[in-house]
């Protein structure tokens, strides 16, 4: 036992000696959380819109005014023709166009039915769809305002309640997502070089003649990183609370324990990579380049998982960050207890055990 402590202390010194890696390790998550917490939002705003008003009457002017005063559009009223719309799309100066036909107001008031045309740049389908939605609701609001009889009977009043997010914070979904992403990559990458570095530098022999069982050697390697990662996680949570104003609704202890489990899972995966590769470069490429995209995609914070073909939904099940994202959303944002997330917890635990077993199996106790 005493020997083991000495061994762990040695590994600690090893990690703490490398100031620059430490700085990167703590600096990166901080900057990223702050950056993405503020910058990423699911809302579509500042859409450049060209208005072609062939009617130039009271109604079209009122509608344009309404669109201008919404925060979603930047209206461009330079006098261009239908022919020039393609040019504005090709050089990127506008993303959509709204066209009022001649006699728009007349049709609206006397025929009771008028038409507008929306043309969008479909190369950005998300914005294109949003534009149609926004303009539809602006027009619906306008119709209500001008409709003849204001005090209509039989009125159903929907009362909207925004659960878990009263302020309508558009980046709330991204914060747990980025947390899962950053922790996953940093923890996996850290331990993925731990063993392979010794192989490359030829210091494996020292490990092999040590009196410890392979399991203890691996644990000793992982402990310093576990401590660092926990500190890192704490820092991230403090930032989320004090800088991004995310209220933690659930138990902090539960959040911490679950995060520790997730970190252990990622460290185990890192050890698994470290024991199955032969160079630091391969290990890092696998743990970072190989992991980054699948993690971004299959965590479910950017692209809804339910839209994916079932084969991808299957794949997403093996991404630890996906389960952690569910856990952290439930505990941090919804204030739920262990009762709701025991399944996800067991999955992470299972993953950690499998990864550790594979790592141990591949830990060479002999020199090749």
């Amino acid at each position: 036992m005493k020997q083991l402590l000495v061994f762990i202390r040695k590994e600690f010194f090893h990690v703490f000696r490398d100031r620059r890696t430490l700085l990167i390790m703590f600096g990166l998550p901080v900057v990223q959380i702050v950056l993405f917490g503020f910058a990423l939002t699911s809302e579509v705003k500042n859409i450049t819109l060209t208005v072609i008003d062939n009617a130039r009457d009271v109604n079209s002017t009122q509608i344009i005014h309404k669109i201008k005063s919404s925060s979603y559009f930047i209206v461009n009223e330079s006098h261009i023709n239908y022919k020039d719309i393609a040019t504005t799309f090709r050089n990127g100066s506008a993303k959509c166009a709204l066209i009022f036909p001649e006699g728009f107001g007349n049709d609206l008031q006397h025929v009771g039915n008028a038409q507008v045309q929306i043309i969008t740049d479909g190369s950005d389908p998300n914005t294109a769809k949003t534009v149609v939605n926004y303009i539809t609701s602006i027009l619906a609001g306008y119709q209500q305002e001008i409709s003849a009889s204001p005090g209509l009977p039989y009125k159903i009043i929907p009362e909207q309640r925004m659960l878990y997010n009263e302020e309508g914070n558009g980046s709330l979904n991204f914060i747990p997502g980025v947390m899962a992403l950053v922790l996953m990559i940093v923890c996996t990458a850290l331990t993925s070089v731990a063993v392979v570095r010794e192989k490359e530098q030829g210091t494996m022999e020292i490990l092999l003649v040590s009196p410890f069982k392979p399991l203890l050697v691996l644990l000793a390697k992982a402990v310093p990183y576990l401590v660092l990662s926990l500190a890192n996680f704490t820092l991230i949570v403090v930032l989320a609370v004090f800088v991004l104003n995310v209220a933690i609704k659930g138990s902090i202890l539960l959040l911490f324990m679950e995060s520790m489990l997730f970190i252990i899972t990622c460290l185990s995966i890192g050890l698994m990579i470290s024991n199955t590769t032969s160079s630091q470069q391969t290990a890092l490429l696998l743990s970072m380049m190989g992991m980054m995209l699948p993690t971004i995609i299959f965590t479910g914070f950017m692209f809804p998982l339910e839209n994916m073909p079932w084969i991808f939904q299957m794949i997403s099940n093996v991404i630890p960050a996906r389960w952690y994202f569910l856990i952290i959303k439930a505990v941090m944002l919804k204030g739920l207890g262990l009762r709701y997330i025991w399944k996800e917890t067991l999955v992470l635990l299972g993953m950690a055990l499998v990864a550790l077993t594979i790592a141990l199996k591949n830990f060479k106790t002999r020199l090749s």
Partner: protein
Amino acid sequence: MRVLRFILKKEFRLIFRDKTILAMMLVMPTVQLIILPLAMNFDVKNVNVAVVDHDHSTYSQQLINKIGASGYFRIVAATASYGEALQYIETEKADVVLEVPPGFERNLVREGMQKVGVSIDAINGTKAALGGSYLMTVIADFNQNIRINESGNNALQNNSNIGITYSNWYNPLAEYRFYIVPAVMVLMLTLIAGFLTALNIVREKESGTIEQINVTPIKKWQFILGKMIPFWVVGIVLFTLALTVARIVYGIWPVGSFALLYLFAGVYLVAMLGFGLLVSTYTNSQLQAMFVAFFFVMIFVLMSGLFTAVDSMPVWARTIAFFTPLTHFVKVVRMIILKGSGFADVQAEFLYLVIFAVVLNGWAILNYRKTS
């Protein structure tokens, strides 16, 4: 020149010798390009609704049926209490709870008004906003029918209706693949050029082989070019592969000119190789290089408009995006491939990329000292 030829030979041989690295460089990106766009889809398809009907009247039944039949919504549960319905939201089985209060039908007819409760899981902003606005539309529509029904005439109909026709140019069905495929192409180039060069040079530092090169008569520029040219070639090969995959798998064929696409890809690769070199001059180990490169690549990926529109971000974030080469490159690739934009449309971006290439490489070379 002869020296450079020898160095290039050596570097190319090194790349082709290591099967893992080769696979990472060409196979992994290709596989990802084939697979990923299938997974990336922002569509809000089914909004799941849990209903709590305290009224059990004809009208409340009609409303619930109408919501179920609208095509947007899936009724996942009908519960006896709000608390039970909330559990469906807690376990992510439902996105919205619709609560119809007792006496809904009676109050509507007698008092002329009645509230219904709509509670939305607002953590996921997009789904909440869309689901909420769809539901409002359905309820308003239902409301209209009731008015006609109860008053027995059409005079109450809204007599000023604005019809909307819309068309999406370049992508009539607004499919996401047109948006995502160019993004993944650009991302692949970025990862290869930015990540791998940085790692490659730092590895020489770490293993001490850079010392050996320093005592040979090889010049700085020869060493740097010897490192960069092979990766530039690999990048161009990868870009060609990506265009082929986009054609075969996704049926996306550039509308604009190939020469222009390759011109941009060439300049962008030079800029990103400069970035990789720059990272390698500031770091001493592969781990550090990886972390630094990863840090920037994450920022590039999430802030450059690959998956979310740059215009929607706050001003300071747009400034960061502007100083990211990826932002301009992805914009141009989309413009040329999907809209057939010509050089006149993208000359500003070309200038930015050239400036990036010059600044990043200049900075890296100033920083690169032959004697460590």
